[in-house]
């Protein structure tokens, strides 16, 4: 896409005899398309550099030196250009190119997944010669070869348009597929013994103009003409990439990325792209369950809801708590918030599981959008999790901003990230000392701080002080480091002039949950508790409640009797698993509302089967605060119900009435009671780019407190997440389940000698909470004195070591 603004000065050109206005710097192919003249193309893709490879877009252009065929994808509009897209010369060139492309194309359309939605088919029908004069043998290659775990390559069908290879190099930064051979023998392939190991490989399947690249999860599942589709938003992470959900016979078969200018530019990470598999999983909860002996038995909804209502009704409101809610739609979150805070009357509600940030920090700082962060010439301060591992679509936007638009990237992360190679300044503070480093960075200290050299801090300070917009990507890089440490850093960074914060909390619709009041001390609409009873409500809790850590700690102390889990799995996802286990033992009744049988569901007394994304309509709020539509495409399995209906029914069973009969009722109430949603037109939210929810709450920084002196023999633990792990949703997606790495303890090589270990040794890692044994590995991206582990890999897990009550978790590493 040529980067032109609507307001740019026009250029008068002539297309097929019609006077047309092109924009300055616009490519001819775009200018023609915008004015209703479609020029056929294969290699041109608006989000990638034009290469002029396929020659399909040749048109007759006269720039004053006589008419000649020129590739319109590489020609910038110039004044007085005369373009003929339908002349005999153009037509003959199109015929010729299509005939050339088809001489080696196998025409196995009936078995090709692309048949029916194939640009080569379509353009051959529209512009082709009709018949081929080629009578020789076509080129033959081995039929589909896997180039990674999910993508197959059929080189016979390939028309060598350079889209996949360009994507791999330019967009994803994984140049692992390339052209090989020469002339007619040119083929796309991986390098020997090196698969196309990219988190974004599925995009190549989507942009392939023929069926050369096919994705295993969709392979032969359906034909394009029996797919129905609806535009929606991906909910697996908080970026909220726009997607098209395609289904056949009430089963979701494919997600495709949709080009939303504000969010994902049409790209999707493979984890998002193939995440629909979990929705079709055999493991899905389809009926309400109730504890019976060692396991569960299927029950009726009335029985399950009745049991849950009985357990809650007999418990004082202050002894009821709820964890989770990031899986829910905004509407369901609102209904649950109203149920919990109004009908039940508890404020012990937290959508996050102790691995996020305090709600008022996210809602209180000046917020930035992805576009703000990616502004040409801007500065990005990465102070959160690795976008490549956690927020794939955001990673691609950031990568583009740094490489193409000259943005400056400063990393304040506990270890190197997928963007480190692009970062202008990489500062790895010791765990717990991020705040000190941020203060030094803002002030421009030249002393060594937090294990980072003064020179490096000074250089990074220069980049910030040089002026220009600064965007801080704020999130929780390590679950082993308290959120208070991040808050301390955020307070320091908020002193930069013209700074905006882009939250990088990763979990699904967590930002919607914060907006809908699923956090202690908050009410829907970014309002604090204590500002009175909102319109449409009858009561609010009198005291500010506890967050997840507080709830679980209180439960262990016997102060919580009923625990409601809204799609949350504290036994796996709470960083301090020992605390979560103790809490589950202590609580009388656990009610789990979920879609998949997680560990916490297995331990619950009452399980309410919920409808998942693609099975419910509603809205989603992404990390920018952008509200976009979620569409229902299929019906839930069994008798599983949408979360908001479960809440409404539970309210009835409790003797209350939420007075919400439909999602429209939710919006009517929200418009009345929420200052930030009042101005939002639900129709605008249904647009592709959605609509931003704006407005912040008052925020007073809280000091993190004294960091205990570092134990000379201990290392500080860093717990990060990876793109692929054994999380419940990924484990239920066959295509993604096997892609996770083996757990290792990553240390800086300099620490090896001190510890007396060498690479590959089994070591025992012990903290105050517990111990695990795993192999140790040298990693230059880990600073000295830190020990990095990836959680949720299914083996030794840092969550067995973390103590959430301390600022940092220190571990002792010894040879096992």
């Amino acid at each position: 896409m040529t980067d032109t603004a609507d307001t740019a000065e026009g250029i008068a050109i002539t297309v097929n005899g019609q006077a047309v206005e092109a924009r300055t710097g616009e490519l001819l192919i775009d200018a023609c398309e915008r004015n209703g003249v479609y020029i056929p193309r294969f290699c041109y893709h608006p989000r990638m550099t034009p290469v002029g490879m396929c020659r399909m877009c040749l048109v007759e252009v006269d720039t004053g030196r006589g008419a000649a065929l020129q590739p319109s994808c590489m020609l910038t509009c110039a004044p007085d250009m005369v373009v003929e897209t339908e002349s005999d010369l153009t037509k003959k060139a199109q015929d010729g190119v299509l005939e050339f492309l088809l001489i080696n194309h196998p025409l196995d359309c009936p078995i090709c997944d692309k048949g029916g939605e194939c640009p080569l088919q379509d353009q051959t029908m529209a512009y082709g010669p009709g018949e081929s004069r080629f009578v020789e043998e076509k080129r033959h290659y081995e039929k589909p070869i896997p180039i990674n775990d999910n993508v197959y390559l059929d080189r016979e069908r390939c028309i060598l348009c350079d889209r996949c290879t360009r994507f791999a190099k330019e967009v994803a930064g994984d140049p692992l597929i390339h052209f090989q051979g020469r002339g007619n023998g040119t083929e796309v392939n991986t390098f020997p013994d090196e698969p196309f190991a990219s988190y974004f490989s599925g995009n190549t399947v989507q942009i392939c103009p023929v069926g050369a690249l096919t994705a295993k999860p969709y392979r032969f599942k359906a034909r394009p003409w029996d797919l129905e589709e609806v535009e929606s938003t991906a909910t697996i992470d908080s970026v909220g990439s726009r997607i098209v959900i395609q289904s056949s016979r009430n089963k979701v078969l494919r997600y495709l990325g949709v080009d939303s200018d504000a969010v994902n530019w049409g790209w999707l990470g493979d984890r998002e792209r193939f995440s629909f598999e979990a929705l079709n999983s055999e493991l899905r909860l389809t009926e309400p369950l109730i504890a019976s002996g060692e396991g569960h038995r299927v029950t009726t909804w009335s029985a399950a809801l009745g049991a849950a209502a009985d357990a809650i009704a007999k418990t004082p409101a202050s002894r009821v708590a709820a964890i989770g809610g990031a899986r829910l739609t905004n509407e369901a979150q609102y209904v649950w918030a109203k149920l919990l805070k109004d009908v039940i009357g508890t404020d012990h509600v937290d959508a996050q599981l102790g691995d996020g940030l305090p709600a008022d920090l996210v809602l209180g700082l000046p917020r930035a959008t992805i576009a703000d962060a990616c502004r040409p010439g801007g500065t990005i301060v990465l102070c959160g999790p690795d976008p490549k591992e956690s927020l794939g679509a955001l990673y691609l936007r950031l990568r583009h901003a740094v490489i193409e638009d000259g943005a400056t990237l400063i990393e304040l992360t506990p270890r190197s990230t997928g963007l480190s190679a692009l970062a202008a300044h990489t500062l790895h503070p010791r765990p717990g000392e991020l705040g000190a480093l941020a203060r030094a960075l803002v002030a421009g200290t030249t002393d060594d701080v937090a294990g980072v050299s003064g020179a490096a801090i000074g250089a990074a300070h220069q980049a910030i002080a040089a002026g220009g917009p600064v965007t801080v990507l704020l999130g929780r890089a390590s679950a082993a480091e308290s959120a208070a440490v991040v808050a301390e850093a955020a307070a320091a960074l908020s002193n930069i002039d013209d700074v905006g914060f882009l939250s990088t909390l990763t979990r699904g619709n967590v930002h919607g949950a914060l907006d809908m009041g699923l956090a202690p001390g908050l009410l829907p609409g970014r309002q604090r508790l204590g500002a009175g009873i909102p319109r449409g409500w009858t009561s609010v809790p009198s005291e500010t409640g506890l967050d997840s850590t507080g709830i679980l700690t209180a439960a262990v102390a016997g102060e919580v009797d009923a625990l409601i889990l809204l799609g949350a799995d504290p036994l796996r996802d709470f960083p301090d698993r020992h605390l979560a286990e103790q809490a589950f033992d202590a609580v009388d009744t656990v009610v789990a509302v979920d879609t998949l049988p997680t560990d916490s569901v297995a331990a619950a007394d009452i399980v309410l089967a919920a409808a998942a994304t693609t099975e419910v309509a509603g809205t989603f709020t992404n990390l920018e605060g952008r509200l976009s539509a979620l569409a229902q495409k299929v019906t839930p399995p069994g008798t599983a119900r949408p979360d908001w209906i479960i809440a409404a029914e539970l309210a009835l069973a409790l003797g209350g009435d939420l007075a919400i009969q439909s999602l429209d009722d939710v919006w009517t109430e929200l418009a009345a009671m929420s200052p930030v949603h009042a101005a939002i037109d639900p129709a605008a939210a249904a647009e592709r780019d959605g609509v931003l929810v704006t407005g912040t709450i008052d925020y007073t920084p809280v000091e993190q407190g004294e960091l205990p002196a570092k134990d000379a023999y201990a290392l500080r633990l860093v717990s990060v997440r990876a793109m692929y792990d054994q999380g419940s949703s990924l484990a239920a997606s066959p295509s993604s389940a096997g892609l996770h790495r083996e757990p290792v303890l990553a240390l800086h090589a300099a620490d090896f000698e001190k510890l007396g270990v060498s690479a590959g040794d089994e070591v025992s890692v012990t903290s105050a909470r517990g111990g695990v044994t795993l192999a140790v590995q040298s990693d230059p991206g880990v600073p000295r004195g830190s020990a990095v582990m990836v959680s949720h890999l299914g083996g030794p897990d840092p969550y067995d070591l973390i103590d959430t009550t301390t600022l940092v978790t220190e571990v002792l590493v010894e040879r096992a």
Partner: protein
Amino acid sequence: MGVLDYLRGFRVTFDKLFEERVTTEYPEEKSPKPDRLHGRHVLNRYEDGMEKCIGCELCAGVCPAKCIYVRGQDNPLDEPVSPGERFGYIYEINYLRCIHCDLCVEACPTQAITETKLFEFSFTNRSDAIYTKDELLVGDDGLPQNLPWEDWRPGEDVATSAWMRATSPAGDADYVGTVGWSGELGYGVRAPEVGQFGEDPEPPAAEVDPVDEGGHH
């Protein structure tokens, strides 16, 4: 009105007494069926027993009654069901909906689905009306399976796998009169149809054994 007038009224009746009867004692007696009768479908095999269906769903796509349900799958490399990458994993025809229009046969790129002349089949429950792949596939002899509720008569199961269009599959008039389909199972090869322009077809080649000549034309 006299007696003659009365008898004159019976003239047509008396005349018809001596003409050949056109009514038959159906179902005891059946008249021959036309060549192009569209009856119950079969899924054909190649000579080596491989299924012709590749699961491309073109038949389902073209079906105006939406009575065909097909799903493809990756062909197992060690034991391929059909030649190529993909095979028809699920193939179902709902005969409560089928209008026997033959568009599925026209659409099929591998001539996997063709029609027999069996139309006399009825069901006692709805699930019997949905023919699955197991029921539609021809046997190793190339002949359709005779299911318990079907009333097959001689000749209805032949000429199924080599049913010709008037023109070639490509629609090229140059190939009118040329047998384009093989009778690879040795069953059901016959002379080509008269072309769309009405010329006489070339005489069938010597080794082609025309069968089923008795139909109406």
